[in-house]
């Protein structure tokens, strides 16, 4: 029982961490001065974070770059990319990619 409560407290603390990190520069009443070049540079941060999450999910498995073509993710990404070139959007490439990914993965075990 004691264990449950301490885990619950840890989880509530994690929620505080969420607010502290997401609101870090929003909390002070006066703006924390950042150099102008840094502000300009940080504009690419969301795109960089997105790429940094997506690319390893595509080309890595168990912390290594995949070394086989028989991975369902590669053809799925290729098809999703082609679909995006044809019709830019989010949902179309997602469904096209899944249409390739799921049969290869469930059918062939790629």
């Amino acid at each position, binding site marked *: 029982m004691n264990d449950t409560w*301490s*885990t*619950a*407290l*840890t*989880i509530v*603390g*994690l929620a*505080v*961490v*969420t*607010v*502290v*990190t*997401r*609101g*870090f*520069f*929003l*909390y002070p009443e006066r703006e*924390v001065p*950042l150099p102008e070049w*840094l502000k*300009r*540079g*940080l*504009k*690419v*941060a*969301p*795109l*960089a*974070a*997105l*790429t*940094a*999450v*997506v690319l*390893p*999910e595509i080309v*890595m498995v168990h*912390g290594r*770059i995949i070394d086989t073509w028989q991975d*369902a*993710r590669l053809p*799925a*990404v290729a098809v*999703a*990319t082609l679909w*995006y070139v044809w019709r*830019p*959007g*989010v*949902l*179309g*490439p*997602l469904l096209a990619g899944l249409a390739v*990914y799921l049969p290869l*993965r*469930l059918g062939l075990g790629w």
Partner: protein
Amino acid sequence: MLPFAPGIGAWGLVTGVAMVKGGLSVPLALLMSLTVYAGSAQLASLPLLAAGAPMWVVWAAAFCVNLRFLIYSAQWRPFIEHLTRGRRLLFAYFAADLNLVVFQRAYPKPAPDHAHVPYYVGGACTIWPAWQLPSIAGIALAHVIPTQWGLGFAGTLAMLGLTYGLLSDRTTWVAAAVSGTAAVAAYALPLKLNIMVAIAAAVAAGLMIEQAQRASDRLRSTP
């Protein structure tokens, strides 16, 4: 924001399943989903909780995983500076990655605009249920949902389309290429710190391109 719902939902579902399979009881997993609301920090804290790590270690780990939000918060600031502190913090709680990406696409410059806050609130009200409902479903059905389907990949594919949409000029292409390469190269770092390395590399590359552009402009203007 709605086109992202299936991708967010897939990740929410996978996170819900992972919390229960990672050893949390159903009530604790629900508590975590509904209060923490930060998928990657939740996933990072699971093995630590299972191993009985001290509280501060779990919190410090989540802080590291969430470091990118510090950068985001500086970028939100000009848009919501006029709000009271309480509202700013409420705003911050719901400010996940996708909120900023989509917001920046709609409003590239922080010029004053009454539509900023309503636009953000609309996005936040879409993403929250799009994440929480599948996450709760994942918690409830953890032992029924087959993990070998690799459903998390649906989330990756959704991010892929979004990433392509952000590639508009040379700077963004180079930033994405540098960041992706750095993230793969630094993948072995603990606590998702490879993402911070990737952001730093991309920002440096972006600034270098800007400098080069300026230098070439200067050379062209001098006869």
